Each structure stands twice: as C-alpha cells, then as structure tokens.
C-alpha cells in the first residue's frame, strides 16, 4: 500500500517569514508613537503643521498603520485576489526599504532636517513601489479579479500616489517643484493616504473578513462596487476642488460622497452581523465593529468645521480629525484584526506539521485574553479623553489620556510578543 493521496487545488498561504517582521515593526512603532505623544502633549495648543506633530502623524500613519496593514495585506492577499503572492523576495525588499526609510523620515520631521526627509521619503517610495508591483503581478496572475481584488489594487495605487506626492512635497522645500509651497498641498497628501489607502483597503479587507469571521449569509457585491466608486469619486473630486482653490461650499460634495460610502459600509457590516450564523461575537470582532462606527467620527468633525467654524479655528478641528483617523478607526481595526490574523499565522507555523499528533491549542489561546480586554478598555478611555483634551486644549488631560493609550500599547506589544514567540511543546 502506498501513502495517502491528496488531490485538489488548495491555495498556498503567504510564508510567515514575509508577514511577521511587519507585525513586529508595527507593534513597536505604536508604542513609540504613544511615547512621542506623551512627551509632546503641548501639541494640543499648536497648529497641526508643526515638526513634532508631523513626526507623530507619520509614526502613526507609516510606522504603525501602514506597516501592520502591509504585513496583513501580504497575508490576506490570497483571500482577496484569489491567487497567491507573486514574489516573496519583493515583499522582503518592501520591508527592508520601508523599515529603514520610515524612521529616517520621522527623525527628519522631528528635527525638520531636509536631507533626512529626502532620504527617508526616497526609501519609503522604493518600498511602496515594490509593494505596488507585487500586488499587481499577483492580481494579474490570478484567473479571477473580483471586487476585493480591485479594492486592493486601487488602494495600493493610492498608497504609491500618497508617498510619491509626499516625496514631491519634501523636495519642494529645497527646490521649487510645485507652483505653491508644500503646506498648500498638505491636505491632498493626507487624504490620498487616509481615503485612498487606508479607507479603501480597510473597506476592501473588512467586507471580506468581517462577514467571514461572523459566518454570515450576507453578501452584496453590487453595494461593494457602489462604495468603491463613491470613495474614489470623493477622493478625486476633493483633489480637483483643492487644486482649483474652490469655495468652501464645494467641499461638501466630496464629503457627502465619502460619508455615503462609509454609511453604506457600516450598513453592510450591520447586515452581515444581523444574519450571522455564529452568534457569539468575540472581543476582537467587537473591536473591529467599534472601529467601523469610529469611521464616522472624523467625517462629523469635518462637517462641524465646514458648517460652524470660522476658518481660523479649523486648525484645532484638523487635529481632532487627524486624531480620530489615526488613533481612532485605523488603530481600532488593527487592534482587533491583529488578533484575528496573527495567531493563525503563528499557529500554522508551529502546528502545521503536527496534524493529530496530540492536543493543540486553539489559535485564540496563543495570546492573553485578559490583557486584550484591558488593552481595549484603556484604548477606548484614552481615545475619548484625548478628544476632550483637544477640544478644551488642555495638556494635563492630554497627558492622562496618553498614559492610558501608552499602557494599551504596552499590552498590545505584550500580546503580539506572546503570540509571535509562542512555541509548540
């Protein structure tokens, strides 16, 4: 008798060696961002265009948000594009360039050193360009390109647009490449990243994974395409309006498009939740649901700014808007989804070749659930308190909020470490 025969098309998952460095890098960066915030709480009194604020924003956007999402997207690429990651070596190169470029860029912002900014931005662009190439090569090698694959590809184009435009802005400090100063284009650069990269990818991944984890009957591809076009139209119209220096009233148009897209996304998740087969929703999924609702906060902040505030008071609301984006829904979805993806990657690494060789722990047993719950409470308390601090411009309240966020970050790093360094007995 010969050994067992296996036949069928089982898609290979991405190698854990590609993914884990991004998670480790992102987790440590979240901690660093909270430490930076703790020592710079006087930013509640400042304009958002200040060196330390820019350094913290880029730590949150690139070192934390983008690095974790790059790691997760390499892992989830097969699920989204229904094919395999084209090239592991390109993924390693993406990590190498971004991992070196991001701290150089952040230090450049902190000290406003043009040379460091230029070197850092160039390295980040090299890494992101390689990521874009890898996503497109993987997607076009796959036989089918569904709506989720288009979300992924479009998000990666917007990511490269964000970093390339950032590169232009950095060089524009030293050489007059653009008609206006770099500050003039800051909102375009920010929204390319927030709407084009983060929102597109989170919606694309979220509409695939959240119903999957719920074991939900709900699916509606038509709505996903409507959301896709609403978000892209919102971003493109915003860029045009900003470049044409149109009146304030024109900004309602992209805002309403983005709001419609987010509301439809929230509706999609609520519907998936309502008809789920798996009734018990774990804490990680609850965190993800909270993040979906948090998406509405920055849009509300923008609406308040447009409707009620004179232009000279918009800077403070700009800080609240940015905080709601980076410390709000982007952080919340990462906090939740890390522990829905990372334990599986490590579980596969440790128990892959141990089929039925004894009792194996469930993936969710690889991290400390109590530490996770405490992290979630502290994160939410810190998040709400910091918004209060920004609203009343009070540094002490901001410090109290940041201590809560910092402890939450420590617990997050602890759980990530516990998971990554888990070894099978």
């Amino acid at each position: 008798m010969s050994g067992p025969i296996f036949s069928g098309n089982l898609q290979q998952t991405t190698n854990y060696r590609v993914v884990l460095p991004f998670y480790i890098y992102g987790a440590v960066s979240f901690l660093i961002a909270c430490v930076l915030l703790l020592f710079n709480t006087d930013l509640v009194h400042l304009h958002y265009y200040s060196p330390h604020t820019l350094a913290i924003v880029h730590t949150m956007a690139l070192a934390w948000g983008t690095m974790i999402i790059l790691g997760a997207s390499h892992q989830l690429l097969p699920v989204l594009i229904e094919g395999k990651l084209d090239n592991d070596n390109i993924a390693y190169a993406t990590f190498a360039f971004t991992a070196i470029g991001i701290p150089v860029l952040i230090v450049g912002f902190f000290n406003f050193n043009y040379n460091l900014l230029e070197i850092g931005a160039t390295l980040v662009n090299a890494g992101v360009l390689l990521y874009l190439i890898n996503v497109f090569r993987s997607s076009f090698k796959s036989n089918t390109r569904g709506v989720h694959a288009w979300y992924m590809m479009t998000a990666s184009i917007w990511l490269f647009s964000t970093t390339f435009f950032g590169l232009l802005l950095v060089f524009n400090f030293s050489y007059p490449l653009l008609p206006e100063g770099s500050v003039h284009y800051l909102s375009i650069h920010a929204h390319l990243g927030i709407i084009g990269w983060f929102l597109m990818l989170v919606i694309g991944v979220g509409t695939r994974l959240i119903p999957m984890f719920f074991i939900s009957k709900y699916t509606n591809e038509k709505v996903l395409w409507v959301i896709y076009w609403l978000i892209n139209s919102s971003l493109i119209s915003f860029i045009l309006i900003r470049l044409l220096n149109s009146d304030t009233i024109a900004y309602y148009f992209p805002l309403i498009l983005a709001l419609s897209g987010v509301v439809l996304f929230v509706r999609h998740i609520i519907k998936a939740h309502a008809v789920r087969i798996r009734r018990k929703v774990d804490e990680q999924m609850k965190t993800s649901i909270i993040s979906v609702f948090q998406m509405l906060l920055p849009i509300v902040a923008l609406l308040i700014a447009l409707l009620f505030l004179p232009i000279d008071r918009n800077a403070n609301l700009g800080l609240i808007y940015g905080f709601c984006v980076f410390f709000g829904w982007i952080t919340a979805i990462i906090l939740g989804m890390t522990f829905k993806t990372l334990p599986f990657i490590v579980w596969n690494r440790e128990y892959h070749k141990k089929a039925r060789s004894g009792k194996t722990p469930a993936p969710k047993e690889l991290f400390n659930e109590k530490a996770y719950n405490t992290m979630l409470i502290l994160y939410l308390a810190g998040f709400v308190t910091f918004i209060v601090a920004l609203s009343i411009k009070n540094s002490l309240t901001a410090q109290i909020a940041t201590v809560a966020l910092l402890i939450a970050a420590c617990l997050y790093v602890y759980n990530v470490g516990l998971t990554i360094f888990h070894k099978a007995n």
Partner: protein
Amino acid sequence: MSVVCVMTNDSDRCDFALVGLYEVYDPEVGLNVVDLGLIYQLDFDEDAKKVHCLMTLTTQFCPMGDQITGDVTASLTEAFPDWQIAVELTFEPAWDYTKISDVGREFLGQ
C-alpha cells in the same frame, strides 16, 4: 433544517470513519469538520482497499486548509490502517452556511 449528510456507498464503514472525523476541528470556528459540512462524500473500494474522501473548505483560501486536510487524512488512516486513503478537495459546490448541521448551528449559538 439540516442534518449531517455525507454521501457514501458503504454506510457502515462511513459511520466508522465519521467517529474519527468528528474529532477533526476547524481551529478558527472550533467546530468539527463533519458538522461544519466539509465532508461531502466517503466511498470505499473493497477490492482495491481504497477510501476516497471528497471534501471542501469554507473558502479555497482558508489559511488552515493544509492543517484541516492533513487532519482528515490522518483520521482516515487511523480508522483504516490497511487501506489506501485518497482525499480530494473540491470547491464545486462551494461550501456555504446551509451545509452546517443542526448540531453545528446549535454549537454556533443559533
């Protein structure tokens, strides 16, 4: 309503195989592969001493796919040590929630 429904040409041997397969779990859901509806067909060729298992996964891109199919193979090998085990993975028809048994639904809180 849905009960465990595995097509077979030998119900006695199928029942014996299922005893082991009830111990094979989808690590994410925490439910066994039989109640989850992943096992479509179990056929037994007495002359060739061969077990053919036609099964699926909740998605073709299931990150635990290797593990689950490996566990199914190991379980069948344990139940039929002198037989050749052939596990065939299919996605036609694709798995959906209707394939979960009543016991499975109860486990999931329905």
